[in-house]
């Protein structure tokens, strides 16, 4: 191999959920247009650290490689983002790579996002259309609602908004911006509306909407440019209306 440019990486590694994290340096050969995933693939192909010693390959998750699946979220140079859209050319070296810190580490850069999935289940972030018989076509969705809903539907559950949230921790049990925004999305849908009350009930409990401190980091970090703070406000309004209606018995 010709003596080409080298990409330097510093990766925070952890051999298992209970193991202590430690940093390991890597050098990989530069190729034009490469992203962080390519660098991680190169390490996996020939797992040697910067000192040239053989080591284990770095575990990571990635699927779509086009920033629509959310799997490859990690903290790159201090900023949570998708590794697939993190181009080496635009990153300062050595590139530091860490797992998301708000989820338990499984191994190296792989984290367990179960809390996020549990919270999505808790608020019923779906539209129940399955039955044992044909339910027929649903009501039409207005063009205006489609305009609002489409950006919200782009959420990939990557967890970046949770990584930067000062309220997302074990003490608050906060569900986080992604989940609040999904509630707005499904409450907006003509069929999803039918379960709006249940979603709002879930968000009124511990860890719900009230835990948001409106630091607005989520909306600044979101790789899909979702108007998360708008969603938090909109859901806040729904919760107030819902609470007043219930208090008045309607």
């Amino acid at each position, binding site marked *: 191999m010709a003596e080409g440019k080298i990409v330097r990486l510093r990766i925070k590694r952890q051999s298992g959920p209970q193991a202590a994290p430690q940093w390991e340096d890597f050098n990989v050969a530069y190729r034009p247009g490469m992203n962080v995933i390519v660098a991680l693939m190169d390490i996996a192909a020939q797992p040697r650290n910067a000192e040239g010693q053989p080591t284990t390959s770095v575990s990571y998750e990635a699927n779509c490689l086009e920033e629509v699946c959310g799997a490859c979220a990690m903290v790159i140079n*201090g900023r949570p983002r998708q590794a697939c859209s993190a181009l080496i050319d635009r990153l300062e070296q050595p590139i530091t790579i860490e797992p998301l810190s708000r989820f338990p580490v499984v191994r190296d850069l792989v984290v367990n996002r179960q809390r996020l999935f549990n919270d999505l289940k808790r608020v*019923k972030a779906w539209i*129940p259309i*399955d*039955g*044992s018989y044909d339910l027929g076509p649903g009501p039409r969705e207005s063009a205006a609602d489609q305009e609002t809903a489409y950006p919200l539907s782009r959420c990939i559950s990557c967890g970046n908004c949770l990584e*930067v949230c*000062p*309220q*997302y*921790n074990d*003490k*608050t049990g906060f569900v986080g911006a992604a989940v609040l925004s999904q509630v707005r999305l499904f409450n907006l849908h003509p069929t999803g509306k039918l379960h709006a009350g*249940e979603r709002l*009930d*879930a*968000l*009124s*409990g*511990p*860890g*719900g*909407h*009230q*835990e*948001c*401190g*409106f*630091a*607005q*980091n989520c909306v*600044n*970090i979101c790789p899909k440019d979702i*108007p998360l*703070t*708008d969603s*938090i*406000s*909109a*859901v*806040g*309004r*729904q*919760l*107030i209306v819902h*609470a007043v209606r*219930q208090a008045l018995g309607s």
Partner: protein
Amino acid sequence: MATATHELPAPESSSTTPSRNAFLLRRLHSLSGIIPLGAFLIEHFASNAAVLSRHPAHAYGAQVKFLNSLPFVLALEIAFIYIPLLFHGLYGLWIASESTPNARRMPLLGNWAYLWQRISGVIVLAFILWHTWTARFSGISVPDHPELAFAKMQAQMAHGWILAWFLIGITFVCYHFAYGLFLFAAKWGITVTARARRRWGWACLIFGVFLAYAGIASALAFRGILIYPVR
């Protein structure tokens, strides 16, 4: 028959409706900061501005006398000041204790504002408890001797460090209230778009700066320092 195996989608665990208390308590915390506490803050600063006159001791004393002549004044104080203050302050401490600030890592305006809302809250609580104790519950009884109210405050303010403590308290309470107004609109769903929040944010900023100016002008007037033209 096979009908028994055909189950309709079960009503999803709606039997366990979670407690709404967390939501209601936080909304009450938010509301209590505006009404009555914010409303009282405005009233308090407006009353104190009586010192911005040619005869501050007289005007200030008349203001104190008027407020203490209100019917049910003790009940009003307890219901609209002491109880909301203790609730907002203590619940606020608990909220702040659950926070994990990261403004260094994410140095964004909203994130700094979030952190300072918590810092200012703690400082303001300490200031208000001290101020209520020294001005209302110790020393000369102001309700009984309204004519001495100005002299009492003047004696306190004569100490440079107490004046500084007042200026800090006033500045932080204005920040906390003004940003609290912004947060109230955001969390209650009044400002749902970024544009609305920007506009309302500017309104809150201007209001907060004005309030701080009014408060500081009144505090300095006890030392004869006038930053507002007295007619």
